């Protein structure tokens, strides 16, 4: 294994695979690092090695990833699957854990294509066994052909929740209930953006198809749900909530939560990329130019890691980043770059045309979040919303101070599942936008690495 590459791509989902293919086709020497054992990212997980007898049940969009994954497997690159980046800095130095060994790699350019994570949906009891994310349910289906033994309850808001319900219906599992938290007043805002969304009408058509299939199956669908509470002792036993003024209680052993996805920012943070708050998507995003280059020269961010756009947009953004890297490394001229980029840019604009509609339709209502002080904000260190409220009342200035006071965000997940909640609570206290609150500082190790692994590596290299 070499210690330096002209281009290192982190993540082998749609954006990372596309960036690798384009850059390699122009003669750039590429290494691709991915946490998963198989290429495809979460979206195309196991698409060419499905454990399902009939992967069609997952839908056509999933199968669209198959040719891309197969083409990626034949792309001449160095590929490090099942590997984690635990260190990254602004000088494009990477600490890699590959086969339980630490390696240091220097990169000429980096494309961060690590995708999204689910937006945390903290409710009382969300830490109980029997509660998981909708994404987790989908991963169990895609990668292990596992489906719930009993019809589950799906709660939250967003396309992924509806897609999972549709897939469970097709798999013959059924769904006990959909507990929909989408705020009613979002509709008007979304309708205003409908004309533009018509440029990407296939997304609307697919959404309507899912919704009508779910309605035909007569799944109980509770609207405007609030004050969700998962209840149980050793495991989940029931979900309680209010829907349109009435209190509802459903006995269930499995609850799958979802309220959209947000960019996974740890790598961009570690590289020191500048971030901005997106009011529309209600999340932080790295600042990038039209090619995906961040505020740190030579560090590109493509796909959902730069802002949520979906798999097709991610692949196009990956291709654009790949072209720009090839141009910077004098593999192609400016004219050729522009000529190749033109159709990609047009297609990208079209795929992104649906976003303002989707983002406003499924925009989360921050005021409805964390209404119960007993809710665990930080699952790792077991810090409740009331504890964050208490330090906010003492005048705590921002997430990093809240972390120092309470240990919130200091656990294993390093704030991935509490950062957004802490921001919301502090913003509520100060009656300001999350944009003014700021965020947790990310520090390496980004993924667990042992001292033994580091010591072994320094022994090798000395």
């Amino acid at each position: 294994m070499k210690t330096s590459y002209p281009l290192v791509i982190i993540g082998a989902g749609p954006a990372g695979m596309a960036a690798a293919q384009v850059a390699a086709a122009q003669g750039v020497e590429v290494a691709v690092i991915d946490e998963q054992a198989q290429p495809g990212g979460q979206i195309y997980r196991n698409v060419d090695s499905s454990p399902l007898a009939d992967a069609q049940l997952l839908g056509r969009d999933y199968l669209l990833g198959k040719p891309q994954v197969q083409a990626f497997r034949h792309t001449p690159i160095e590929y490090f699957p099942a590997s984690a980046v635990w260190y990254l800095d602004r000088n494009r130095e990477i600490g890699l854990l590959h086969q339980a060994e630490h390696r240091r790699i220097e990169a000429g350019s980096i494309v961060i294509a690590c995708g999204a994570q689910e937006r945390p949906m903290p409710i009382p009891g969300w830490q109980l066994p029997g509660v998981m994310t909708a994404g987790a349910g989908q991963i169990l289906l895609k990668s292990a052909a596992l489906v719930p033994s009993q019809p589950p309850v799906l709660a939250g808001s967003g396309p992924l929740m509806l897609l999972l319900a549709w897939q469970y219906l097709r798999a013959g599992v059924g769904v006990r209930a959909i507990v929909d938290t989408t705020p009613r007043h979002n509709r008007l805002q979304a309708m205003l953006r409908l004309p533009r969304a018509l440029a990407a009408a296939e997304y609307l058509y697919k959404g309507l198809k899912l919704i009508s299939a779910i309605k035909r199956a007569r799944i109980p669908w509770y609207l405007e749900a609030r004050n969700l509470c998962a209840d149980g002792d050793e495991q989940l036993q029931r979900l309680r909530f209010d829907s349109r003024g009435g209190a509802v209680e459903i006995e269930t052993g499995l609850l799958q939560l979802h309220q959209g996805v947000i960019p996974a920012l740890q790598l961009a943070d570690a590289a020191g990329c500048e971030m901005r708050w997106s009011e529309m998507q209600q999340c932080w995003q790295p600042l990038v130019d039209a090619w995906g280059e961040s505020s740190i020269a030579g560090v590109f961010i493509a796909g959902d890691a730069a802002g949520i756009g979906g798999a097709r947009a991610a692949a196009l953004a990956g291709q654009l980043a790949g072209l720009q890297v090839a141009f910077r490394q004098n593999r192609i001229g400016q004219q050729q770059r522009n000529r190749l980029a033109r159709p990609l840019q047009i297609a990208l604009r079209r795929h992104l045309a649906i976003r303002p509609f989707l983002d406003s339709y499924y925009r989360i209502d921050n005021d409805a979040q964390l209404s119960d002080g007993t809710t665990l904000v930080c699952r790792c260190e077991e810090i409740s919303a009331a504890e964050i409220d208490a330090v906010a009342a003492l005048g705590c200035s921002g997430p990093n101070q809240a972390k120092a006071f309470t240990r919130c965000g200091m656990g294993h997940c390093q704030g991935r599942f509490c950062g957004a909640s802490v921001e919301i609570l502090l913003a509520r206290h100060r009656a300001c936008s999350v944009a003014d609150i700021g965020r947790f500082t990310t520090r390496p190790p980004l993924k667990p690495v042992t001292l033994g692994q580091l010591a072994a590596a320094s022994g090798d290299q000395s």
Partner: protein
Amino acid sequence: MFRRLEDSAPERIEIEIDGEPVLVPAGISLAAALFYLDAMPSRRTQLSASPRAAFCMMGACFECLLEVEGEGSQRACQLQVRPGLRAWRQLDPLEPGANS
């Protein structure tokens, strides 16, 4: 909590959970295997001994931590099962790793 769709690949392999031999579908993650076996909770927290299980299945939440082949706190959702694999649930919060 979860079952395997009947019509998919039938191959099963033997692994060991908490010292007990069990059969699980080949090619799945260790965290998926625990759902398949209904081995809940998959751990208890050190702070309050509260029960937990895999939550995100994509390596981000660290709720699926298990002791695997003598190494504590491994993310079970990021590990594939293989024949003979030995894993222990970290159910005794006072003594993590006491099983090895």
